């Protein structure tokens, strides 16, 4: 198990909704500068795991820490200050706010007058968003909203980017675009925790992966090794 002090360390995490156990004692870690994919089918417990990190659902865990700081020691709205940013499932951008204000909200914990060109860097990463600067985000297409959700998360200058199914509902071309951006971010040294049903995409973007089924880790290993694993290939890559 991850004894590394740096990065994200989660040990024996469980999440229940009343009688329904969604996550049953899973452990994983994302080393500083590294990346981890969590893949699993509908209802495997992927989103519940991420919500637990951000204190958005009740959970139990032996350890849940980032850079040695326990995530449970902070109220949910302070977790972003540790350098973890969240791209929630279904984008969850603020539909009535302009694209610019959505981005600013990503930097809510920083003084908006001193963002040092952060917004320009996000627009450089997603050139297609710039012309919608003053447009209500609800008017954007699904792909643009996903880019905005990622851009919004980047506005906090995170060390770890946590993404919940960024490819969901997007056309293959758009998935390629987003994959390209995530790859660039990885090259810039941003750590990544990527939750996906799209195993192929995830294997291509991460160093290591865990496979979740019914709230338990059933496989784990390097992404390259999992991609070649016959069982995983059959179930998750359909070949």
């Amino acid at each position, binding site marked *: 198990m991850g004894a590394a002090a740096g990065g994200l360390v989660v040990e024996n995490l469980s999440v229940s909704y009343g009688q329904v156990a969604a996550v049953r004692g899973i452990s994983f870690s994302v080393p500083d500068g590294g990346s981890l994919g969590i893949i699993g089918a509908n209802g495997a417990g992927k989103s519940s795991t991420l919500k637990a990190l951000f204190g*958005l659902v009740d959970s139990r865990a032996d350890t849940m820490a980032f850079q040695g700081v326990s995530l449970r020691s902070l*109220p*949910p709205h302070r*977790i*972003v200050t540790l350098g973890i940013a*969240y791209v929630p499932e279904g984008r969850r951008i603020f539909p009535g706010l302009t694209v610019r204000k959505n981005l600013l*909200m*990503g930097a809510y914990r920083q003084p908006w007058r001193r963002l040092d060109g952060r917004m320009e860097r996000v627009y450089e990463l997603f050139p297609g968003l710039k012309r919608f600067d003053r447009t209500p985000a609800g008017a954007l297409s699904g792909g643009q909203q996903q880019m905005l959700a990622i851009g919004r998360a980047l506005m906090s200058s995170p060390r770890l980017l946590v993404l919940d199914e960024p490819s969901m509902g997007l056309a293959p071309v758009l998935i390629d675009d987003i994959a390209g951006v995530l790859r660039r971010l990885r090259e810039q040294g941003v750590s990544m925790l990527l939750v996906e049903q799209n195993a192929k995409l995830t294997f291509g973007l991460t160093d290591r992966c865990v496979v979740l089924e019914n709230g338990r880790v059933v496989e784990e290993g390097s992404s390259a090794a999992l991609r070649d694993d016959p069982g995983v290939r059959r179930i998750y890559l359909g070949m």
Partner: protein
Amino acid sequence: MIWILQTAIGGLSTGAVYALVAMGFSIVYRTMGLVNFAHADVVMIGAYVTVTFFLTAHLPFGVSLLAAILITGALGVVIERVLRPLESRDLNLMLIGTIGFGIVLESLAILIWGSFGTAVPTPIPNLPLRFGGLVVTTYQLLILAVAGAVTALLFWFLDRTKLGTAMQAVAMDRVAATAMGVDVAASNALAFAVGSGMAAVAGALVGPLLYVSPGMGASIGVKGFAAAILGGFGSIPGAIVGGLVFGLVEAFSSGPLSAYSDLITFVVFALAMTIRQTGIFGERTVDRA
């Protein structure tokens, strides 16, 4: 023709007060999904506090109003803070809590100011100004000016300040707002403070038109509430339009048929609501995921 304009001016000036009350209901509702039933009594407290500073302490009206805004704003924070533990358990409990708070405020007003009302003079000499055949009183103009300024201030706050932007973000998606770093509970408290401050303005302005009494919240509160529903509960532009329409309908029905004015107003309201159940601007539901 002049009669129509004349009546419209009167309707708009009372309508402006209803709009202020309605905006207070709406700002809390859009952020929390909660109908704050104590709001009507906060209007009453605002009226009393203004009157106390203005008539008893002989402070200028502007200063009295400002003091009332601050005091009711703080009262709003207290209401939110006391009822906060109920929010995570059941919003209906919190709603009942606001009803309870209203009763407490009314009793408190009786203890402090007595159960009889006070007649309040207008803060400025109420002179008729003639524009051709049209007569507009200076107090009507004052109401419109103050209500307009407060509304502009609210829009500026929501649109141009960081806290206001965050409050809007909370209304749209409280989970995403939390993940971005917004303290939703603090934002809710601020919504209560802003709504209550606006209630004080409404109370202070309406004081000279009505009698300031512990029970005054009931009548003005119900009209502000109905105005908010008419405009689309939770919508700020809806609250403004709803308030003005309500004031106009009331003014036009009270000329020839004054005894039935309230009845007619509420019948028109009920008809409007059967035709368009979401209200004029209503479409969104409040996010409580």
